[in-house]
């Protein structure tokens, strides 16, 4: 079986769906956060695949940017989660509901 573009896109879609469902359904903030990362990774897989099959560098360049931003985001996001845990002693989203109205 020749592995073509569609296979990569399928993997990317499955990863994205997993990430999205995780964000929708999981209760733990840390896990939700990991799911967000999963969605980002899914998009990078698709981009690399496009780059490979179209013989251009555009997708690869995009991936570099996404990785850079994801790294910066992880630094900030994890710091917020740690600070939140110190303050509230929990990272369960149903208990983090004070910010409303």
């Amino acid at each position, binding site marked *: 079986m020749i592995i073509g573009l569609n296979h990569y896109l399928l993997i990317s879609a499955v990863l994205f769906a997993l990430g999205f469902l995780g*964000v*929708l359904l999981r209760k733990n*903030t840390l896990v939700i956060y990991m799911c967000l990362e999963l969605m980002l990774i899914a998009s990078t897989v698709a981009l690399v695949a496009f780059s490979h099959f179209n013989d251009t560098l555009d997708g690869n360049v995009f991936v570099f940017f996404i990785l850079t931003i994801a790294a910066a985001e992880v630094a900030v996001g994890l710091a917020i989660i740690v600070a939140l845990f110190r303050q509230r002693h929990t990272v369960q*989203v149903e208990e983090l*509901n004070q910010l409303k*109205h």
Partner: protein
Amino acid sequence: MEPVQTALAILLLPLASATVIALFLRTRGALASWISTGAAGVIAILSLQLILGGARNFPASWEWLKLGDLVISLGIKFDDLAALMLFVVSVVGFLIHVFSLGYMHDDQARARFFGGLSIFMFSMLGIVLADNLFMIFIFWELVGFSSYLLIGHWHEKSSAAEAAKKAFIVNRVGDFGFLLGILMCYWSNGTVNLTELTAMGAANQLALGAAIPLLLFCGAVGKSAQMPLQVWLPDAMEGPTPVSALIHAATMVAAGVYMLCRIHALMVFEALQIIMWVGTITALYAALCAIVQRDIKKVLAYSTLSQLGYMVAAFGLGAGWVSEGVKGGAMDVMRLAPDAAGVGAAMFHLTTHAFFKALLFLAAGSVIIGCHHEQDIFKMGGLWKKMPVTFVTFTIGVLAIIGMPGLAGFFSKDAILYLAMKNDTKVFAVLAFTAVLTAFYMVRMWKLVFLGEARDDHAKHAHETGLSMTLPLVLLAVLSVVGGWSAVFGKLAGSVAHLVPEAEGPVHTTILLVSLVVMTLGAGSALFFYQSAPTDSLEDKSRFAFSGLVWLKESFDRLYNYYVAKIQQRFAMLLNFLEQIFLAGLIIRGFAGFVGLVGYGARAFYTGSLHAYVYWFLLGAVLLWAFATGLL
């Protein structure tokens, strides 16, 4: 100094004086009074130098504001007309400053008073020197402000504070018309520069019509207290007497007449007719009111009104004989000929009136001080022995205003009467009758104040005032005598003096006889009629005539009170009601309520649950996708 620099120095010196007094010397009354008087003295010297130096119409104009096509500039137009007015303002102003040194010596707020005088001199000189209507308007408002400041000098008295407010508000009414007139003049002629307007008038390029001159005349009606806006001037006597002399007799109230002479090129026949009648009726009305006044300053105030009416009527009469030139089309709209006799007669009377009315007011101030602030003429009497200088100078003032031959008022009044006789017999009759009344009420006051026996303790212990007050009186008395002589006035007024109409031959004899008869009739009947008694002889003998005149005097105030309280106030209440419902209720509260409701609904989305937000996000993404693909 160059003439331009001199003129600028004249204009800016009083401003500097006022600034220094307002910023640093508010509690140093003595120093402030000397600075202000010194500034006035320097202005008088510089003015004389400028007037006698002979430089005229030097170019001086600076662009100040540029809004699209509209350029507002500040400039100086110094012609013979301005030179004459400058002489009146600076010399009379200086003498009144000197008088104030004595008159206001014991006042608590002396610094404020002299600062006010300085800011007034600045604004008045600005009107005199201005070269365009916008600049005149700016300084026009400034004299209104300084007049407000000085009328309300003794603001602890509620009557003074209210008189100041009244003067300011009534003037606003006139100034509104003035501003409209300026805008209309700019709109239809493209310029408000006086020199350019005169040039366009000479070349017959001006937009014709009675609206512009009549709207501009509204300003003069307010400032020169003509009917129907005359009500503020008698009340303005609440201010200190030097203020009445300077602002409400000699200079500011004459600014309206001066402004009319400035815009003479814009005049048309119909407008001049209206101006003439307004002036004539004011002259008669005020003279009638003056007969029943008890307050020495109120008599003079109504006399001022009456004389201002004379000037305005004289200006309006300048059109009459030109219309005779066009037979068969007498009612045609027509340009005025440049030999405008009305300007000459009006400015002549303005000048002589400034001298003798300032003299009369200052002498009245001297009487008031001498009698320990008593102003009721029925409580005075017999002052001629106790106040000889005041008596002599006051007598000269009275003789000048009633037109004794040889004194200033005689010549100027004759010029006006001659003009009236030539152009309009009805106006002539009214003005001649007014002259009878003038002689009547002036001699009445003179007799009650100075002759007979003292009728009150204040008058019994009256004393002559100090040198700072008598010296200006003497100088003004000299001016009141010589001011009308052609040698003096011709030198001061230059080309304006040539505009003054002069009767010749038999007409001259007629006019002379008329004015002599008029004067003798008025003065003689007053001398015989009024007894030196503590009650008004007219009230004793003819209660009906007396109360009629009092009613006439009060009728305008009553009418305006009724209008303000009953009509304007109710209209304002109606507007307020509508505003509460529509503007405040429907529009303001309505919109706020609607936005509040939307916000109340939108708040429901904001639950605090992270998962709910993810669903909203999903919904948003789906909607966006639907839009992008064209499904929605």
